[in-house]
């Protein structure tokens, strides 16, 4: 079947070429020569494409902007989002200026046998302008970006951040809370044994009050310092709702700090999120899947093996009281081992 289609396609193509060649022979011109008619047709197609590209661009913005991540749920995330929006406006403006000019020129200066091109080889003033203007715009973006980056990576701490270890292995996450002393006990893969899945050093006095959990709960408004470890390969702890991400690298500890600002319950009330959840549930109902309520997630964002696509953990942001209640239910290392 496929073979027949292929053979027919080849035969059709051969016939078409014959027609092209014969017709160009009839016009006493080689098929490959670009005629005024070709230039005209292709020039118009270029213009059409340029317009189509812009229309498609606006259509996508109008239709798909809603699938993007909702507002940030962390303090530094708002800074990142402002920087993102400004950078995005700049590049979209450039896109909307340069692309139309390109396709307009392609159409406007489409060749014709009675045209002659203008010999114009350089203009230092123009070169200067389009070196300096981008340089100035970029200078602003660079300074803004570097400021946001150093604010994000070196946050000023008015209160001591709460320490949580996020532990990665193929293909799951585990959290370890630092306990009452807010200090994590020493741990290493060499100490992994039976129920001690994180390899915590049980002789370390700091370890006894550490708590192990399969979900991350965070009190709203309190800075959290995440310490990342990996047991086997590189993973990446990606928390898109908080605009946070850091790789988990075997053999070393990495870290990232942020302050959650919106509880899960509040986020579920957010107008944008309500709309998103409704759309998602419409899709899920149609497929006969269970309904979904909005949750923050931690997902793996560095290729780590066959089940990489399903390495996730829930994150719950709640009030201090709810958090304390949840924490009290979690067992300490001393109790577990």
């Amino acid at each position, binding site marked *: 079947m496929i073979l027949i289609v292929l053979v027919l396609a*080849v035969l059709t193509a051969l016939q078409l070429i014959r027609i092209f060649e014969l017709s160009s022979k009839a016009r006493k011109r080689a*098929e*490959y020569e*670009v005629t005024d008619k070709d*230039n005209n047709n*292709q020039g118009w197609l*270029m213009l059409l*494409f340029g317009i189509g*590209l812009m229309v498609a661009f606006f259509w*996508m913005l109008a239709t798909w902007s809603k*699938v993007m*991540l909702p507002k940030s749920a962390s303090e530094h995330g708002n800074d990142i989002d402002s*920087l993102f929006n400004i*950078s995005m406006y700049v*590049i979209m403006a450039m896109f909307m200026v*340069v*692309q139309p000019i*390109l396709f307009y*020129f*392609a159409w406007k*200066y*489409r*060749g014709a046998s009675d045209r*002659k*091109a203008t*010999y*114009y080889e350089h*203009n230092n003033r*123009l070169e200067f302008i*389009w070196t300096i203007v981008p340089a100035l715009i*970029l200078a602003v*973006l*660079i300074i803004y*970006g*570097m400021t*946001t*980056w*150093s604010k994000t990576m070196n946050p000023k701490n008015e209160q001591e951040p709460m320490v949580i270890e996020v532990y990665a292995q*193929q293909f799951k996450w585990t959290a370890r809370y630092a306990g009452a002393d807010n200090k994590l006990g020493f741990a290493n893969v060499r100490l992994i044994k039976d129920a001690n899945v994180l390899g915590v050093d049980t002789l370390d006095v700091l370890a006894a009050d550490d708590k192990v959990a399969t979900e991350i709960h965070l009190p709203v408004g309190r800075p959290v310092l995440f310490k990342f470890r990996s047991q086997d*390969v590189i993973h990446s702890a*990606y928390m*898109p709702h908080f*605009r946070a991400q*850091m790789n988990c*690298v*075997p*053999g*070393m500890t990495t870290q990232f700090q942020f302050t959650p600002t919106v509880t899960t319950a509040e986020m579920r009330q957010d107008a944008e999120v309500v709309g*998103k959840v409704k*759309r*998602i549930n419409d899709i*899920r109902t149609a497929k006969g899947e269970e309904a*979904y309520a909005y949750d923050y*997630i931690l*997902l793996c*964002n560095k290729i*780590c*093996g066959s*089940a990489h*696509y399903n390495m996730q953990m829930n994150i719950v942001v709640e009030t201090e009281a709810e958090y304390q209640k949840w924490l009290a239910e979690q067992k300490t290392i001393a109790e577990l081992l």
Partner: protein
Amino acid sequence: MADHAHDHAHDEHHDHEHHTENFWTKYVFSMDHKMIGKQFLITGMFMGLIGVFMSMLFRLQLAWPGESFPILETFLGKWAPGGVMDPNMYLALVTIHGTIMVFFVLTAGLSGTFSNLLIPLQIGARDMASGFLNMLSYWFFAASSVVMVVSLFVETGPASGGWTVYPPLSALPQAMPGSGAGMTLWLVSMTLFIAGSLLGSLNYIVTVINLRTKGMSMTRLPLTIWAFFVTAILGVLSFPVLLSAALLLMMDRMLGTSFYLSDIMVAGELLGNQGGSPVLYEHLFWFLGHPEVYIILLPALGITSEVIATNSRKPIFGYRAMIGSILAIAFLSFIVWGHHMFVTGMNPFLGSVFTFTTLLIAIPSAVKAFNYITTLWKGNIQFTPAMLFSIALVSTFVAGGLTGIILGDSALDINVHDTYFVVAHFHIVMGLSAIFGMFAGVYHWFPKMYGRMMNKSMGYLHFWLTFVSAYGVFFPMHFTGLAGLPRRYYSNAEFPIFDELQDINVIITMFAIAGGIAQVIFFFNFFYSMWRGPKAPQNPWKSNTLEWTTPVEHIHGNWPGALPEVHRWAYDYSKPGHDEDFVVQTTPLKDGEHAH
């Protein structure tokens, strides 16, 4: 071949020499740069066919995850039982697709083809400085291609840790099936590839420096040659670093060393390795990896400069600024690799440094884009298929370059790192631009390669289907990326939050299949025209450069008589005071005529 200098004795030597070439010396172990260029092209096209086909297979899985497609079982066998793709095979396909497209198609296929074909022809040389090394360079590449293709058929599957093959994943066969024999073959293949690439690059550099014909000063060189020259320098400086990274990885895999490994327990087994760091590998890899982007892109930009100037019937605008921007991009490309590593745990201070250097690249890139557009201005544009692809290149170079301003900013990269936003960015700015440049090159220089013309109408059809599909595939990915969808996910069905992205994924796959099938037109046109196309005239595009002063039939040594002497730059199109709208570089300046 060291005697290939431009002395008269040598020219005569060529007149009298009669080569008796048999099939083997002419087509297989050829030392003629034109034949070697064609060998690179055909091999690159074959590899490209595999790479593009793989992308169509994994796009099927992404649009309809878990659905059964009999075609998958046909091609993947045990890796798609019942027509449903295995997750390991998905990762293998994206890995090999990336490897093949980046290295085999857009490095060897693009730079290997056109550097070989054009450097001697456009600078007025008989051949490359060393024909033997040139032949060796191709055969290393051919051997590496064979090994890479063989790796697709090993029991445990081909390498599947992503084209960057970060350890420990790629170092430990216990971590995934693809890290077994498939990964070993991947490393062997890349080692051969690097050897071939280095031999080629050294040859290009030496040839451009030493074998330019009389009058061909560096500031009269076509921009293609400038691009190939700088690309070769980038390759010579960066590929050895990848070689060392690959060798250390091999040692970690085979000899029990710990360059990249420390404190690992995998599949329940505690490893003895201690003290190594995967971050070291990332530094070494990206020290090549980022220049590699420009190794891919610069030749395409060089080709575009030539094609746009010729077909606008105008000089390239800002010739010296174009050279300056090539050099600036090349220099900067060595000090930006850290922008691939903002969230690896590298010292945050370095993040600031790399943000600064990375965003600087936007300046020379903007200069290039504006110069291309100004070249079109008040031109007399001849829409050959090559010209269409070159204009498309400018479009994708701008569209993809702009999102680099987001990704190069460390603070913003935190949230879009390794998402589909990145996939969109690099495919548009590097993948599409480079492949468009390659198509432009093939359409433009096909007459020089095969002495025949490609079919124009099929070229038009191929172009429009490809251009529309290309944007259709990659533009929507910006949105799935900003929704937080990570790349290299076998399926996004495990996360309800990504449910509403499924429609977009289906659209992308439709365009991918359409774009893939459109390439059949190109392949058909290529091979049909090779044998049946109309005979090419000597200078079909009315171009100024030296390659069009050689006879249509290939001869060893390129020019039958003495080597041409150059009197002007390559871009005297529509110059006032001349009857024709082009002035070949060998034409002496008239009395009182100003050079450009």
